[in-house]
């Protein structure tokens, strides 16, 4: 039996964020939100471990405006329950504050053996939350996990580094952070979606976590966010494959992109 915590972040869908035409600031309010991509891989991996070894899978999620519907999505995939902190004060949270709040929330969940995170979040892509949580609990962490096997003595993980795959072992409890390589997240069936409506979502107040003012004060402030513009010619070529191939070959030669 292994009890697994999965950290799910709700973020804007970055593919649908459009910059304001003048200020170039992202119009975040107009883009839909979703569960950060890699977190679904983390959840999927947790569910697979549970299917093999038994135990429970608890989703944890903190943010300034948590959407219940997205929590239900995780429960429909197969998480047993969820713990959530939704507080406007977290709008300015940096990685430090987020990790402190998550850790305090995880303490509320009680017993656990593994924490699974995405290696990087969709919006911030900081790779920081997993390592920070591990540091708070003083346990090992492994990022870039592409394959996980539970053993009697702990966990064996295949970790993708620049030079190749490092096979490493860690004792439990531990934090693992995963990317899209590890699995393909399942789509919940209608039955699962229905079952999810009965699963518990525990709403925890920020004030119940016993965090100090210092722990809740961001160390990094975002002063400005601006779109980086790239100008492209955006010429569309349509037609039969023969024409397209002909045209394209000419363009490559004429523009000096390929040389005789």
């Amino acid at each position, binding site marked *: 039996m292994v009890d697994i915590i999965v950290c799910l972040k709700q973020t*804007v869908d*970055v*593919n649908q*964020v459009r910059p304001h035409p003048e200020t170039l600031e992202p119009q975040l309010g107009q883009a839909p939100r979703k569960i950060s991509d890699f977190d679904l891989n983390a959840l999927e991996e947790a569910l697979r471990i549970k299917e093999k070894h038994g135990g429970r899978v608890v989703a944890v999620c903190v943010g300034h405006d948590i959407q219940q519907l997205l929590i239900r999505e995780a429960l429909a995939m197969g998480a047993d329950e969820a713990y959530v902190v939704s507080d406007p004060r977290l709008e300015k949270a940096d*990685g*430090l504050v987020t*990790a402190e709040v998550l850790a305090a929330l995880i303490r509320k969940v009680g017993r656990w053996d593994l924490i699974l995170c995405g290696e990087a979040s969709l*919006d*911030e*892509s900081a*790779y*920081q939350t997993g*390592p*920070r949580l*591990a*540091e708070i609990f*003083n346990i*090992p*962490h*492994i*990022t870039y996990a592409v394959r996980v096997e539970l053993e009697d003595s702990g966990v*064996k993980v295949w970790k*993708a*580094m620049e*030079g*190749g*795959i490092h*096979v*490493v*072992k*860690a004792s439990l409890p531990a934090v693992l952070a995963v*990317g*899209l390589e590890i699995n393909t997240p399942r789509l919940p069936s209608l039955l699962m979606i229905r079952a999810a409506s009965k699963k518990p979502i525990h709403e925890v107040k920020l004030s119940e976590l016993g965090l100090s003012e210092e722990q809740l*004060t961001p*160390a*990094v*402030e975002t*002063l400005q*966010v*601006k*779109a*980086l513009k*790239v100008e*492209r*010619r*955006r*010429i569309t*070529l*349509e037609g039969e*494959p*023969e024409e*397209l*191939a002909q045209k*394209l*070959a000419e363009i*490559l030669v004429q523009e000096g*992109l*390929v*040389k*005789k």
Partner: protein
Amino acid sequence: MSTILVYSENPHAAAEMLVAARQLAPSLNASTAALHLGSMSEQDLKAYAAGGAELVYHVDGVDAEKHGPACVAEALANVARNVDAVMVLVAATRLGREVAPRTAQRLKTGYAAECVQLEASSDGLVAYRGVLGGTYQAKLLFKRKPYVVSLQTGRYQPEGSGSQPRVEKVSIEITAPQLELVEIARAESAGVDLEKAELIVSVGRGFKKREDLSMAEELAKVIGAELGCSRPIAGDLKWLPEDRHIGLSGKRVKPKLYLALGISGQVQHLVGIRDSKVVIAVNTDSNAPIMSEADYAVVGDIYKVVPLLTENLKKLLGR
């Protein structure tokens, strides 16, 4: 005077970080030093010298590869405390991205990941980094010291041979949780330098089977291009080695020509090709995001267009 403490398990990356650190040092009223873990060779010392290091702290008992990131973070945080570091600067390698946030947590401070630029201001350190998939840039201000930062590599040029740095031995008792390294399966990496490639033919999930990549390989051969790919091709499918994947979590390339075949162009891919001079995309879906981020958007089937294109080019180029 306080210190900017630099660390990377890769001494050449450390040298780059030292160059960045030395540029910031006067305005932060700090000196610079590097941390080296494990045995130190002449080569290592040369690399630190090339970055202009005056001082290298050397901790012998910790090995990044063997003990894992928690132990590296412990050593880094300990030395940072001992020398009253104003800033800890880590190269954003894979290990660096694990070590830096763990160090920041140990020091109970903020962290800015994979920055592209750093500036000292009267309020503190200002860091610039990509967010929202890399298509936006955030300007961040640190409100607390020390500042923990990882910086993208390939942005600073070590000048060559500085004078030999002073080496100071530090002994640290490691108590952080260790990993056990079982084995390393070295990648069958072609060791390509995609960042320096002039022409890149890049493949995505529009390719149905691994064997079909031969179409792209043939085209690449005819025009003398390197082969690149989207993350799923290297990651999930493992059709190409990791070091060929381009984008937010992979290589950032700047070729004259980037030819994207069957790649949808999600923002995380686009950020890696931003500095390409000409982008050409071939995709069956005229609404794929890459089609509006290309100089030439070719609406077509790669299975039909690519072999014909290769034939045409062979003729035109006389190959």
